[in-house]
């Protein structure tokens, strides 16, 4: 019944768009669309505009590449944060996870992913060169690598570590076993907070 054609092409289009969202099937999509149809026209307009505006006007902080409404995000521009420490993460969601722990007062650098040739992602597709430049140009004393603990995270950590070899900066990583094979966001706040405080020297994790 769900897969039957709808009586309206407009309805069909809207349902199809909602069903593209992660975790939303056609059944839920139809429920959401019918809900929107019951609302005031103005309310629905606000809803639509918010999404269009989000997409058109969203900015990325030119320093750390976190999402931001301003050229430099409110973490990078906050004078009470420790500018000498940079935590390297994969995505914006990781920034949110670490911020939620309230255990970290340094800055971030969002790579935008990890090195994975099978997904067509090489170092030049990531914010690695900008990271190296940022460290060279500023007084940074410590880099915390907080990528996924899978092979791709390992490879990216090692790649960055090698790029930083000739720069005087301490490279640390959040304690292993935090989320074996998992992503940062799935770790609970307490464990994540603790592992950020108890970070270890990256070179100690290398066995060669």
């Amino acid at each position, binding site marked *: 019944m769900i897969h039957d054609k709808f009586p309206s092409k407009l309805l069909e289009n809207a349902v199809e768009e909602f069903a593209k969202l992660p975790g939303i099937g056609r059944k839920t999509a139809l429920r959401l669309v019918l809900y929107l149809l019951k609302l005031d026209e103005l309310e629905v307009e606000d809803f639509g505009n918010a999404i269009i505006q989000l997409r058109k006007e969203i900015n990325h902080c030119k320093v750390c590449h976190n999402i931001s409404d301003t050229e430099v995000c409110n973490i990078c521009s906050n004078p009470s944060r420790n500018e000498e420490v940079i935590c390297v993460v994969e995505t914006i969601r990781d920034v949110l996870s670490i911020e939620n722990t309230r255990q970290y007062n340094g800055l971030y650098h969002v790579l935008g992913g990890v090195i994975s040739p099978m997904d*067509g992602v090489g170092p030049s597709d990531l914010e690695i060169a900008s990271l190296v430049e940022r460290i060279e140009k500023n007084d940074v004393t410590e880099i915390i690598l907080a990528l996924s603990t899978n092979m791709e995270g390992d490879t990216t950590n090692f790649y960055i570590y090698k790029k930083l070899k000739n720069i005087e900066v301490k490279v640390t990583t959040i304690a292993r076993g935090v989320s074996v094979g998992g992503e940062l966001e799935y770790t609970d706040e307490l464990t994540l907070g603790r592992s950020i405080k108890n970070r270890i020297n990256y070179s100690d994790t290398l066995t060669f």
Partner: protein
Amino acid sequence: MLKIEYMHLQSLSILDFKNIEQADFVFSEKLNCFLGDNGAGKTNLLDAIYYLSFTKGFFNSIDAQNIRHHREMFMLQGKYIRSDENETISAGFKIGQKKQIKRNRKLYKKLSDHIGLFPLVMISPSDISLISGGSDERRKFMDGVISQFDRIYLDTLLRYNRTLLQRNNLLKQFFEKRFFDEDTLSVYDEQLAELAGVIHKKRELYVNEITPVFQSFYTFVSGGNETVGLSYQSCMNEGDYSRQLLACRNRDRAAQHSTLGIHRDDLLLELGDFPMKKIGSQGQQKTYLLALKLAQFDYLKNASDIKPILLLDDIFDKLDAKRVSKIIELVTEARFGQIFITDTDREHLAYILDKMNTEHLIFKIENGKIVGK
């Protein structure tokens, strides 16, 4: 010396697994025999026991094909005694759902947590692929045993394979998109070298440890006039792996995949100074495989401090009477624990059991059913 723990399968219930509609067994803690005609379901019974140790079938890892034809699910339940404790392992699979493995009614989240708890060695006619098949069969033989109790090994192997896959993808991209990124390639090379070092050391240790045991078993069963060899072949025996990787870079780039590494390792199986595959008679090959698998048993026993369950499928076929009686003498020694044997011929089996002089049970199987004892 470490105390070897005691373990055996007390009872087994089967529902709709392969050709077995429904069956309940109570086993001897020493020797159990499944007797029946071709196609009766003897090997399927061994497979059910195998499944409870490895959470998958020996022959078919596709669970849907292990369900009895025209049914939707199968269930297996084994009651074990392990280090004086009762343990119940159950396995169930329903079409369209995830398989469920439970230990004492508790569902496993990760199946790999179960592997190694109830060690088991299966000796079957299909072992012949170790001799006749490609080198991947022989690597599987090493990897399967070592990873049964060494989690670090399994984890390292998975990481190695993942890194290799990424490195191969990178080489393909170099070729297709006509560029070269030395930095990224050397990151993969260094990672591969680290992981390969761990794997190589453990494989070498394993082969070195089983070789004398294997040779003594072979000598015992064959009567001593033949010598057999087993040696581990790896590029890492030829010197520094990182340097070799660097040296074959151009070859790898042209081939668009990694031509050198522990993913190419092999075992050299010899009779006298010649390859077993080329000159071994069927009985000699069978004896070789039996001795190898029993050496594997011995290794597992020492590594896990538990006597594995031994499944012997059709092992007496093709062997002369002298070798058969030697094998019987060997496996009834105290160093082996619970054994399951299949045979088609009642007289043959009676002759064997007569010699064994051990506590035993016989189950007569017909069409997937127990029809007598």
